[in-house]
């Protein structure tokens, strides 16, 4: 209403110089990107990092502690744990990618529909989202697995479905927020069609936080997939899946700490890194 409160300066803001931007990059972010790059490389070309077959063990080398030959030690079948972690990255990353894809596509679609169409559509969609939100995500994925059956793909889909609610809520709130900005109204006022304004102004300006959430969910999906793997609902045993490896290592917990500690630590590093990257993405989009 009254305008007095806002005093807008007339100073000119120059685009940030590249030098200044580089100086702002923190070492932690560089490390995070590095960790993500390494794991992606593991998933794409595992044979470059290890020669051995991760499912076949050497019988003379059972349960060896970490050493130069076996950085992460070996397991009860004499398999190199690092090799298995490297080959296992593919299951985690592809699974997380599928999960984020499911959540992103379905959630964003629901969110955009709820945020743009009529009040009734909005209400119906948001109640569906409430239902998804009311069921603890682990239980939701477990019930979906009960229906679909076990396996890597089913686990990914289940994990993806649990994130639909979050994507939908965020997208809707962003769309609603952007729809109420002056520049969207101005676009309507200058004769824009509904869909044109939606496409040209609303969607591009709503998607920044959604992209950041995707990166965040990627980390969370890795975590959830590992959890379901640990519980034994993912791929069957010879598969070098990270959660399953920790689960199998539990039998040797008193003697062979590396079997549980190291694969789990890799999960922590990867999730930590994707979260760090996500936060930097979120900041970029806002700034």
């Amino acid at each position, binding site marked *: 209403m009254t305008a007095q409160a806002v005093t*807008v*300066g007339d100073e000119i803001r120059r685009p940030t110089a590249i030098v200044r931007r580089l100086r702002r990059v923190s070492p932690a972010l560089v490390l995070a990107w590095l960790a993500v790059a390494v794991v992606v490389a593991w998933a794409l070309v595992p044979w470059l990092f290890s020669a051995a077959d991760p499912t076949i063990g050497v019988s003379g080398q059972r349960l060896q502690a970490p050493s130069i030959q076996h950085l992460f030690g070996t397991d009860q079948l004499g398999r190199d744990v690092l090799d298995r972690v490297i080959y296992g990255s593919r299951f985690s990353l592809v699974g997380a990618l599928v999960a984020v894809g499911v959540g992103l596509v379905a959630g964003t679609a629901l969110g955009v529909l709820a945020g743009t169409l009529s009040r009734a559509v909005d209400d119906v969609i948001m109640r569906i989202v409430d239902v998804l939100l009311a069921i603890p995500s682990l239980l939701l994925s477990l019930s979906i697995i009960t229906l679909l059956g076990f396996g890597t793909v089913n686990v990914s889909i289940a994990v993806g479905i649990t994130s639909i609610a979050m994507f939908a809520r965020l997208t809707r709130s962003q769309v609603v927020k952007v729809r109420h*900005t002056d520049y*969207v109204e*101005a676009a309507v*006022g200058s004769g824009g069609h509904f869909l044109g304004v939606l496409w*040209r102004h609303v969607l591009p*300006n709503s998607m920044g936080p959604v992209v950041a959430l995707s990166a965040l969910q990627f980390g969370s999906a890795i975590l959830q997939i590992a959890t379901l793997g640990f519980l034994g609902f993912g791929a069957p045993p010879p598969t070098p899946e990270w959660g399953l490896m920790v689960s199998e290592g539990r039998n040797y917990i008193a003697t062979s700490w590396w079997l549980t500690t190291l694969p789990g630590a890799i999960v922590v590093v990867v999730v930590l890194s994707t979260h760090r990257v996500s936060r930097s993405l979120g900041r970029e989009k806002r700034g």
Partner: protein
Amino acid sequence: MTGKTRSPVLQVKGLSVSYLRDHEATQAVDDISFSIDQGQLLALVGESGSGKTTVAQSVIGLLPGNGRIDSGEILLNGVDISRWNWRRLQTVRGRRIGLVPQDPAASLNPVRTIGANLGEVLRIHTRVRGSELRRQVVELLARVGIDDPERRARQYPHELSGGMRQRVLIASAIALRPDLIIADEPTSALDVTVQKVILDLLDDLRREYGTAILFVTHDLAIAAERSTEVVVLRDGRVQEHASTAEVLSNPRTEYARTLLRDAPALAGRAAPLPPAADLAAIALRADSLVQTFALGRKRDEFRAVDDVSFAVPAGTTHALVGESGSGKTTSARIVVGFRRPTSGRVEIDGIDLASLRGEALRQARRTVQLVYQNPYGSLDPRRSVEEIVTEPLRNFGLGDRRSRLAKAGDLIERVALPASVLGRRPHELSGGQRQRVAIARALVLEPRVVVFDEAVSALDVTVQAQVLRLLEDLQRDLGLTYLFVSHDLSVVRHIAHTVSVMRRGRVVEEGPTESVFGTPVHEYTRTLIDAIPRPSERVS
């Protein structure tokens, strides 16, 4: 408290402050000196980025985390407090220095009662508690003119109006009779009539208690009306420092002269004369507009706009002026077709805009365009200026790509921007430049009527003056018709040929600007006009 010597209450000597941003120090305040005696009001005047607020924050030791005092002294009753840490400053804050902040809406803790907010300063510095504390709180509330203080003390901040909240904050600042009060833009968030009351209250308290006041403002007119001494800041440096009378009558620097010329309340310019009635056709006619909103239960309704009519001759400017809640913005939104009135007609070129829907309404939008208050929010941050200005043409399929580009180039030149801005995005432009882009976008469809909703309110005075001159030039050259919505009577007086004064949804007075302002008939109009700061009365 004041027994010792007659040294000034506050002395600032060679103060320099810088902010650390991205590992680089930016100088915000550069070698500023001034002093305030007991009972004096010194105005620190400047536009945004001048460093005026930084000075105020330095005095009370509340610079933002990345701010640092590089050199200089801040003497409070002769003692340098500029290097004091938080713990030592606690003893002078509230007790010796009081603060009246800029935004009363956000300056009271929302989850605590008025009484708790106000009693805090007593609880920090005195041993007063319980019923005695409550008694003092009520007394303070009564002193700043709050009716029914017992009840108010139990209420929460959101239950009070902006003016009342500012009174509470003033009560809190004077509770312990400090030697110095820092008032940082204390009225810029308030309506004009409330502004006058608050300023009068500060004046009374200053006289009664002999408090020194450091008054920070962007508004030279207020400074001129209330202060004894003025310090004009620009880019962190003192431009002019003299008694108020001298600055007004004999400004020494070019910048001070510009400020004086551009401040609408100070520039003694007559309102433009309306055209002879029979010469001009009516370009915009609003007829008995009514807008009601349902309130809570079904039968209650709130009449935001109540039987508003006006007619604007082609090529002239009509102003809707009023305070917050007067219905002026709602009326403007009805005129541009963003809001369908409960009843009434909006006629442009003989077409009733208020009755249109869908495609017909979209086509009609070509005839009337809106320029928003906030140039930071009205331009899509992801589009280039070129895309922003050509978009309306694309929407109506006018011209091909090349002709649209040419037209955008023309308009950017018309609004006095360099052609290089076409490739830029809004965040690379200043507030004034953005508002020019918004004007170019509004003009690209060659509308009959352009509506300005507080379109210059967010701009610094010098920029505001430039944009107002631009609007006048465009009107003269292109024969445009303007509907100008504003709370600022001084601005309206400059630009409008005719005016409607609005209050609580109704038009209380209308007519040619000169006669409404010169010989107001309605009492409310007179109150509004009285509230305009008038330094000339003081000076003479």
